[in-house]
């Protein structure tokens, strides 16, 4: 029987983590995501024995994740923008040491302390590396609370499949709002001894060492090349997107996360006016669906990218389009969510050949 529930985004995500068999959560409070830690503190340990620890800072949380992930356990943390900035050094170590873990960024508007209102302004940080060195996170961008739930499960699967940190890049609105979700059944917590993990050196195996240090340039280059080969494989196998009416559209809206839903609404309003509007939504932001975007650019007249930032995914869309057609942009910042009407107005302008 389906298990349907009305849940707040952050709580649904926390519930999904418990059900996905998460072994440990380390985190530090920050609005708009503190409910994740609170929900887990209340529910998790009693139900599954999962470890839940409030750390003294995001720097401590991510380094606890580094240690715990190194044992092969399923571990996660969550935070919001300023806290995620503090985690960047740790994420760089984790990516280099190839440790599986799940990081959730419930984005709020920056820069600086910014505001607690929703934003998508951490796109660059999430998909281009974020910390020092050449590395990538696998980045999932849910647009519904259902997807917050599903991506939590998927995130752990991808993290272990690729031995790579996975980030769920969501925003304060999705974290705070309530929607109906279908919860997946509990996956039992089980501990598998992984050959690379630090679990205590037994006589039958070499010692496991988790490190990101390779002092000889040749070795460090080899480590980098290995990571790059892995990222190329991830690009081949893991691209996910949603494409709605993009084949016959004149105008195609491109957006990720919550904004894609607003774009769908705008597209429906445009359809009532007889304008053919498609909506393209990358679900994985790394790997990014460059090829598919390039392909749908063959049939459309113009692209309109909509984001809650100053134009970050826009750069990847332009790379994908490679000059085939004009790419327009609407960007709202500071915690303001674009409305379907303002998107519609722009669609109408564009359709009449007026570009700003």
């Amino acid at each position, binding site marked *: 029987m389906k298990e349907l529930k009305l849940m707040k985004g952050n709580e649904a995500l926390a519930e999904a983590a418990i059900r996905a068999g998460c072994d440990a959560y380390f985190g530090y409070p920050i609005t708009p995501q503190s409910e994740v830690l609170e929900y887990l503190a209340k529910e998790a340990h009693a139900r599954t024995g999962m470890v839940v620890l409030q*750390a003294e800072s995001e720097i401590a949380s991510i380094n606890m994740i580094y240690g*715990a992930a*190194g044992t092969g356990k399923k571990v996660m943390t969550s935070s919001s923008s300023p806290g995620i900035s503090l985690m960047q050094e740790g994420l760089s170590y984790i990516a280099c040491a190839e440790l599986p873990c799940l990081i959730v960024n419930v984005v709020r508007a920056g820069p600086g302390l910014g505001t607690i209102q929703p934003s998508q302004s951490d796109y660059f940080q999430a998909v281009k590396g974020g910390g020092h060195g050449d590395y990538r996170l696998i980045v999932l961008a849910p647009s519904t609370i259902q997807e917050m739930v599903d991506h939590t499960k998927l995130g752990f699967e991808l993290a272990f499949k690729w031995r790579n940190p996975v980030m769920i890049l969501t925003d304060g609105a999705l974290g705070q709002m309530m929607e109906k979700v279908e919860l997946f059944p509990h996956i039992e917590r089980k501990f598998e001894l992984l050959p690379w993990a630090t679990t205590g*050196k037994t006589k039958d195996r070499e010692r496991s060492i988790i*490190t990101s240090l390779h002092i000889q340039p040749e070795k460090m280059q080899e480590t980098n090349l290995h990571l790059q080969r892995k990222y190329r494989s991830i690009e081949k196998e893991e691209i996910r997107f949603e494409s709605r009416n993009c084949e016959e559209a004149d105008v195609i809206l491109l957006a990720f996360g919550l904004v894609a839903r607003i774009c769908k609404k705008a597209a429906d309003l445009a359809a009532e006016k007889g304008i053919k509007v498609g909506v393209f939504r990358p679900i994985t932001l790394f790997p990014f669906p460059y090829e598919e975007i390039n392909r749908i650019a063959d049939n459309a007249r113009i692209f309109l990218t909509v984001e809650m930032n100053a134009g970050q995914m826009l750069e990847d869309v332009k790379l994908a389009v490679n000059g085939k057609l004009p790419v327009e942009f609407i960007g709202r910042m500071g915690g303001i969510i674009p409305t379907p009407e303002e998107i519609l107005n722009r669609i109408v302008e564009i359709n009449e050949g007026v570009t700003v």
Partner: protein
Amino acid sequence: MNERRMLSDNHYEDVIAEESVCISDNLVYDRPETLTSTPMHYCPGCGHGVAHRLIAEVIEELDIQDKTIGVAPVGCAVFAYNYFNIDMTEAAHGRASAVATGIKRVLPEKYVFSYQGDGDLAAIGTGETIHTCNRGENILIIFINNGIYGMTGGQMAPTTLVGMKSTTTPMGRDVHDMGYPLKITELIAQLPGVYYCTRVAVNSPNHVRKAKKAIYNGFKYQELKKGLSFVEIVTNCPSNWKMTPVESNKWLEENMLPFYPLGDLKVPQKEN
């Protein structure tokens, strides 16, 4: 060994050929199973090597090699995992105690220790150190206090003595500019989560014996799930102190130990 020297001969691992050191004529005592045969990169006379050996001996004597996970710092001991024949994680600078917390929380039946220098533990990692100790994590922290940043080439550490010269205090540490040396071990000893807190040294045979006992206690208390054990080892850095090993051990005795007196700061209370 300092990083700048590594830069100039970064194939140092090959430079010290194993054969030239490990010949039977030189054999005075054997290597515990818990140390690898990799020649250590530490400068001659450096206390890090002695501290490593003591930890390895204790792990062997307690027969817990298969249950022990170590956390290496960023500092001269960054390559500790090349020498200990146990599972190890190399932490970011200052974060070793948080990394150890993560490991211990998911593997509570294992023995976990961090090994950290003074810059690592008492400057950049002060927050993690205090909070790990305050939570009473059931781990052992080994704190190597040599009063200097060894790895980066002899800059001032939080523990550098007043008047002591370093590359960033060329006229000697001036308290008006740099404050006083931080006795973090005395601070740690105040925290209720800390079960055992002691200060030892490895500059003489007698001190080495006591240091080993302290490390042994730390692992033993962990087995008994007593909470956090904190063992400070006052050591030398002949290279950056710009002394011979013998001079450095004498200087340590005459200058470091009066300010960092050896002995227990917190011992287990008798349980009724």
